[in-house]
């Protein structure tokens, strides 16, 4: 037992640290970090140093599923209804275009290639149709990772997010069709309608489960305001959902994605900090997920001709994605950046493709291609190799698409602003204090004159002794006689949290959220407890929104200036 724990912990440590090291190396070469994770996986895996063996990766399968669940949940959180309403027609057309075009081009070309080699129509057809179906899927994890890494924002980013989130479902439907056909052709009992029915049931089941998960989370978020508790709950719920999805043979990503999507649309504001927490937590999980994905790829036993299939597949899929999304985008009148560059952002291929290939191999394990090679192995090897190749050039191509569209670095978020600010940057600096020895009648006037709900109470040395709130005064309203002899110090509440002007804004806002406080006095840093301002959550929110807008405008302005500069440089002087 100890050996197993040691070995697993060793793998986890090596994977995360090695992955981060690889990522920083590739980032220096201006290549997305995810490529670094995968390359490190290849180096430490079966193809390289063999530090992580195939059985280790198998032992860590539950972890991979957990990572997929987290990724799905976060991707779902990006899918806001307003975006869908605005772009629904475009997304649907592009999805069908890129998915079906990749399916057709890969299916036909690999089928023809295999027919030329083996002169067996049913094998060529079966392999072609399975390769085609798998080719339609795009890997959301590595693609989204690039979008986040380069802080992109804009219509292309939105389109890429939506398409990679949705085309797994399309891939599964095509796969359902494909395996139904293949089973009939390969002589295995089965029917297309039965297979499609099964797939539709699986997809619907996943969506229903995710919906139920989102309802549970909504119930919780509306009642519990402690962020760390909600975070623990969402992780627990995700683990539960993933296990049920795996048990019921449903899609893990779709389940958690539905959960994230429904939640973000039901409680857009309240869920924001929860998504942020999950995202912060996801970094080591992402690293580990991709390192293990790299380590899992075993390519040493492939026959030579299979590399031909791999080349055709990669070429056909890439052309299919670019051409299909161009046709879909053009047909629906999408913006030029979407038409031109969306296809470049859809090359990555990951877990779903490998998963589908493994499932397909199960059905095709008895179909012999040559003396000691089964069609099932061809599919598994082929998809593993193509996944490796497209995972190495797919994420960099996402970056290229983002750069060409000018959407890199535009995503200034509220979190960026909050992280960069201290309390002093956003507090109200007009300090209205109340003396602890003031009679209530006098102090009550302050609520008439000013708009705040709380005021710092100071002692004779002007140190903050407590807080006078409207809520606190409420307790003496019913006994007006007492107003003559009660003082502010009698009705003030002690300071629940000392907020210094030098504190990090994020930390204080989280505390205020958890304690359900709307306004809190701010003291100067040091021991003096001297009030210097007041933090008002509503005004803070307003200022953050303005700052996000201002920073985005500044980026836009800089971009437009650069463009004008470039135009001027190329315009000949008359």
């Amino acid at each position: 037992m100890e050996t197993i724990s040691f070995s697993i912990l060793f793998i986890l440590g090596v994977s995360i640290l090695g992955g981060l090291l690889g990522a920083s190396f590739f980032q220096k070469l201006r290549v997305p970090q995810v490529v670094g994770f995968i390359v490190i996986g290849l180096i430490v895996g079966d193809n390289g140093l063999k530090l992580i063996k195939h059985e280790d990766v198998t032992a860590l399968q539950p972890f991979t599923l957990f990572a997929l669940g987290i990724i799905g949940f976060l991707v779902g959180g990006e899918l806001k209804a307003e975006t869908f309403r605005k772009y629904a027609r475009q997304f649907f057309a592009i999805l069908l275009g890129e998915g079906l075009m990749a399916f057709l081009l890969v299916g036909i070309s690999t089928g023809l290639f295999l027919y030329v080699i083996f002169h067996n129509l049913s094998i060529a057809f079966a392999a072609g149709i399975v390769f085609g179906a798998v080719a339609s899927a795009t890997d959301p994890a590595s693609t989204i990772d690039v979008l986040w890494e380069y802080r992109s924002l804009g219509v292309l980013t939105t389109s890429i997010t939506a398409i990679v989130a949705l085309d797994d479902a399309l891939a599964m439907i095509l796969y359902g069709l494909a395996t139904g056909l293949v089973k009939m052709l390969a002589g295995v009992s089965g029917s297309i309608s039965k297979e499609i029915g099964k797939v539709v049931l699986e997809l619907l089941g996943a969506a229903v489960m995710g919906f139920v998960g989102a309802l549970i989370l909504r119930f919780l978020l509306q009642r519990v305001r402690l962020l760390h508790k909600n975070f623990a709950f969402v992780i627990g719920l995700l683990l539960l959902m993933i296990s049920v999805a795996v048990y019921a043979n449903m899609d893990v990503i779709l389940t958690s994605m539905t959960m994230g999507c429904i939640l973000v649309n039901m409680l857009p504001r309240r869920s924001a900090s929860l998504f942020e927490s999950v995202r912060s937590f996801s970094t080591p999980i992402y690293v580990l997920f991709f390192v293990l994905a790299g380590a899992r790829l075993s390519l040493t036993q492939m026959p030579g001709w299979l590399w031909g299939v791999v080349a055709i597949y990669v070429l056909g899929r890439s052309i299919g994605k670019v051409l299909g999304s161009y046709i879909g985008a053009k047909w629906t009148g999408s913006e030029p950046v979407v038409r031109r560059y969306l296809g470049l952002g859809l090359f990555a291929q990951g877990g779903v493709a490998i998963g589908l290939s493994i499932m397909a191999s199960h059905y095709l394990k008895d179909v012999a291609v040559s003396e000691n090679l089964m069609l099932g192995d061809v599919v598994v090897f082929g998809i593993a190799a193509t996944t490796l190749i497209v995972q190495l050039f797919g994420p960099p191509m996402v970056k290229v698409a983002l750069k060409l569209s000018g959407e890199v670095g535009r995503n200034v978020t509220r979190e960026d602003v909050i992280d960069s600010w201290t309390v002093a940057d956003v507090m109200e600096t007009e300090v209205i204090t109340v003396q602890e020895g003031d009679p209530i009648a006098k102090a009550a006037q302050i609520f008439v004159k000013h708009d705040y709900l709380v005021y710092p109470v100071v002692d004779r040395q002007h140190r903050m002794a407590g807080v006078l709130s409207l809520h606190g005064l409420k307790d003496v309203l019913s006994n007006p006689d007492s107003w003559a002899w009660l003082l502010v110090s009698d009705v003030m509440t002690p300071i629940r949290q000392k907020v210094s002007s030098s504190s990090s804004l994020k930390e204080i806002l989280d505390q205020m959220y958890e304690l359900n406080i709307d306004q809190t006095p701010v003291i100067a840093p040091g021991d003096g407890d001297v009030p210097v301002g007041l933090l008002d959550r509503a005004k803070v929110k307003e200022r953050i929104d303005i700052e996000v807008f201002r920073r985005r405008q500044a980026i836009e302005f800089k971009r437009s200036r650069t463009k004008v500069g470039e135009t001027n440089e190329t315009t000949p002087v008359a």
Partner: protein
Amino acid sequence: MSNDVQLSHVLAPQRVMALHTATKVEALRTLADCLATAPEVGDREALREGIFYREQLMSTGIGMGIAVPHVRLASVSAPVMAAGICRTPIADYESLDGVPIRLIFMIAAGKSQHVEHLRLLSSLSLRIKNETLRDALIAAPDTPTFYETLIRQED
């Protein structure tokens, strides 16, 4: 205040005492020592300091011969009260109406027991406005009678 406080929950018979001093300082000190015997009070010195600090801000002589010195302290676990019958009226208390003090109700509560503290103050002051009760308390020949008279009002 809707939540009327049961005085019997905060005042024990042994914390009612007859005061034979004519000065405010002495009366407050004696009564604070008496209140400090309650298990809810963790720090006698802090109690004394708190009571006198509050008096510095403004006198707690609320008029009609009544004083309600009170304090909220971190070292107090629950609202608690002591009462003193001034056998010699205390003229230097600087009460709101200038009338010498005949009855002192000293109250202590926890630092964060803001609501309970105010409820107790309010409940007591409303009760003591009743002249009949006030006179009966001042005239009480001994502390058990005082206690019985005050608590009986709640029934």
